[in-house]
């Protein structure tokens, strides 16, 4: 039933750059394999080769003892190899059902069997826990929902080997649990799974063994049970990691609020939400998928319709009608949707970095040299791994794109920054760097709001955490009250005392 995979001296070049070097290892059938590695280690590239999306420059892939050279994803799929991409790959204008069955539609006679596809889609969506009409257009979905559609799409294929590249980066614990349930089921039915994630706790929970890559090369394979999370991190990064989180500085107490928000109403998404954050404070937002956190802040920035709400910045009542108003007052926002809203993939890294702060480089012509210098600095500060500073954003690995997006919103030097899933897809080493960076910025007086689906992150980083559920702010927890149980209880509405 399930497949045995072996890579034999697989190398891959993009132009002059070698991103995979002589990778050889094999994966026994019927297991859940964790694939670990730093950002840019080559995990996604290797999996694309396995899935038929890329061809190796050298070497080959063996499936069940037969050499395979897939010319297209379809050929890999015929053997039962299905890949869920790191980036969402859905046709926005089509409906969920249309996307799920794209390329393998059910037909009745000459025509499509829309009813059957709809029914099957509904069933699939139920399995992944997405309560949305199969006929909804994908463009109407939020990122996490799109991710669930991707998973449903993969489930619809008869997978014997399911490759998941960062499936949970935007999912909250509840959806993640459901996904793990699905993975166990599939393994029970003899399907192997390759699971790529930078969330090491997940890797520890779900995988049977791990494979580690570094710098495009294979490092080692171990049974998961035999390595601690700390060891995993060491294997990936190749150095000893200190504590993941900086020790929390005291929350500033008497400073004037940097941002105060009252009675925000984003129709359909957020109701009567109010909160405030001081300079130097890190405020977290927790909630399930659909709690309305992203939409609250999109509403705040004028990216969505907001019907009421008062905003004060630096103590002064102010209007924010669009992201420009916000940026002018020192408020910037990092979107959770990096491909769609975060960075311009066809731009170079430099052009992305300076997009929000171009006036700084205009005298009156753009000073490309200064931009380049800034890019060099950002590469250092955010640990962006690129083969050259002029590389296109689209040629970066997922995690490095995320770092670039983060660098972009911090580049204008905001006084308040809203980070929606700031470490999405970022490796553990870089995560740590980012946490320390945020921490430093906060110490220098930046007010930081972090929306995250990683509770550990919220707990480790934030002074206070706001919890949202179905559009309402249900709790505001101080540092002392912060723990996973409490957060989940508030987020799911099972908290007793409230």
């Amino acid at each position: 039933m399930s497949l045995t995979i072996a890579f034999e001296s697989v190398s891959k070049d993009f132009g002059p750059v070698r991103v995979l070097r002589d990778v050889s290892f094999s994966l026994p059938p019927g297991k859940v394999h964790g694939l670990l590695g730093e950002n840019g280690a080559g995990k996604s590239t290797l999996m694309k080769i396995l899935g038929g999306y890329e061809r190796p420059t050298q070497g080959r892939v063996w499936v069940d003892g037969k050499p395979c050279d897939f010319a297209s994803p379809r050929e890999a799929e015929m053997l039962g190899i299905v890949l869920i991409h790191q980036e969402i790959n859905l046709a926005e204008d089509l409906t969920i059902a249309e996307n799920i069955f794209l390329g393998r539609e059910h037909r009745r006679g000459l025509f499509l069997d829309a009813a059957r596809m709809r029914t099957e889609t509904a069933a699939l969506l139920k399995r992944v826990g997405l309560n949305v009409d199969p006929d909804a257009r994908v463009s109407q979905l939020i990122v996490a929902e799109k991710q669930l559609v991707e998973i449903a799409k993969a489930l619809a294929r008869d997978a014997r080997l399911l490759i998941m590249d960062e499936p949970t980066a935007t999912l909250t614990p509840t959806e993640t649990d459901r996904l793990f349930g699905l993975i166990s089921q599939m393994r029970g039915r003899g399907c192997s799974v390759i699971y790529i994630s930078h969330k090491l706790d997940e890797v520890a929970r779900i995988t049977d063994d791990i494979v580690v890559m570094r710098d495009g090369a294979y490092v080692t394979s171990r049974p998961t049970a035999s390595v601690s999370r700390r060891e995993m991190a060491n294997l990936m990064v190749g150095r000893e990691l200190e504590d993941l989180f900086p020790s929390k500085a005291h929350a500033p107490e008497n400073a004037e609020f940097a941002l105060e928000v009252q009675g925000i109403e984003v129709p359909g998404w957020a109701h009567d939400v109010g909160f405030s954050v001081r300079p130097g404070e890190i405020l977290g937002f927790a909630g399930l998928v659909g709690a309305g956190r992203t939409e609250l802040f999109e509403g705040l920035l004028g990216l969505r319709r907001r019907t009421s709400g008062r905003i004060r910045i630096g103590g002064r009542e102010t209007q924010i009608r669009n992201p420009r108003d916000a940026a002018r007052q020192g408020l910037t926002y990092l979107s959770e949707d990096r491909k769609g809203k975060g960075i311009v993939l066809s731009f170079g890294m430099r052009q992305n970095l300076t997009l929000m702060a171009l006036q700084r480089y205009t005298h009156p012509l753009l000073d490309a040299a200064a931009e380049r210098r800034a890019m060099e600095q950002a590469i250092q500060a955010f640990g962006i791994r690129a083969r050259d500073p002029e590389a296109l954003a689209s040629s970066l690995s997922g995690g490095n794109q995320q770092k670039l997006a983060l660098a972009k919103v911090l580049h204008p030097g905001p006084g308040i920054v809203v980070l929606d899933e700031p470490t999405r897809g970022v490796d553990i080493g870089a995560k740590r760097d980012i946490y320390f960076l945020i921490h430093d910025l906060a110490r220098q007086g930046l007010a930081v709001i972090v929306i995250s689906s990683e509770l550990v992150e919220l707990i480790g980083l934030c002074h206070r955490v706001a919890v949202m559920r179905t559009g309402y702010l249900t709790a505001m927890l101080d540092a002392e009250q912060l723990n996973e149980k409490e957060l989940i209880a508030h987020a799911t509405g099972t908290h007793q005392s409230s």
Partner: protein
Amino acid sequence: MQPEHTNPAEGGRGPAAPSKSETAAAANERGSLPRLSGSGWGGRLHGLGPIAGLVLLCVAGTLLNSSFADVDNIMNVLTRTSFIGIISVGMCFVIISGGIDLSVGSMAALIAGSMILVMNGLTGAVASPALVIAIGMAFALLLGGVLGLAHGLLITRGRIEPFIVTLGTLGIFRAYLTYLSDGGAITLDMNLSDAYSPVYYASLLGVPVPVWVFLAIALLGGLLLNRSAFGRYVQAIGSNEQVARYAAVNVDLTKTLTYVLLGICVGIATVLYVPRLGSATPTTGLLWELEAIAAVIVGGTALKGGSGTMTGTVVGAILLSVIGNILNLTSIISVYLNAAVQGFVIIIVAFLQRRRT
């Protein structure tokens, strides 16, 4: 350059005129968890845009001249819409897939000319005019398909922008017709002309033949777009070519087929057109491309592709010719300003059904 300009509509309180971002959000709004596919009022209005425009125009037409609503007039308008309408059906596929075809007018001219030459040439050899005409028709469709295929191959295999390919063939086709006609007209043989004219002028159950054909093509087009795998692929390619490629859709084949389809539609339109005017000249089909593209876009399809409706396209085509018809019915406007009125109406209709970006 730091943009200083602020948008008073954006983020406005209360039920103000929706701004771009607001309406983007509105599309996202849903009251209950099981999200319904129709996105409420906005969505429905959007779909209704061209129809509403058409209805308004018809009311205006009737007010201006009561004969507007006569069956004869309506049939006239529908009949003359049929050429552009049929071409628009094909164009709709091309545009939804993310392509464009500027050459349809010239192609129609070339097909008309070649078809007439073929038919005239056959009159000596083949006795029955009906057979000659049948051969001529088959030839027209074939030629349309072949020219479309050439477009498709140049675009997919040659990897040249559709705009350039069809701009080039726009010149080529018309030049060849001019060459064939020596700058003058290619005229259909008298006898054939009489035998052929019912194809345009005859009626079936009171409805002229071209209208029936138009209806059939539009229905077929609708089925193909919404109920066949091909149509699905066309939409997927226009929406995100990479996704389609990943889903093992044969992108090149599908794109090529859209051009072939359009070519055949042009062939069909020509088959109906030739009996009407009985000749082809270097000005035949001039600017049809603009009309066909306009019909598709007025019908609510985005020029960038991805999604669009057949109903919209058909309504768009009818709408455009109704404007011309109404202008013919009244004398209130200076003849010089016809084009201006057309322009205004097109913009207004588009405004009614603007899409929320």
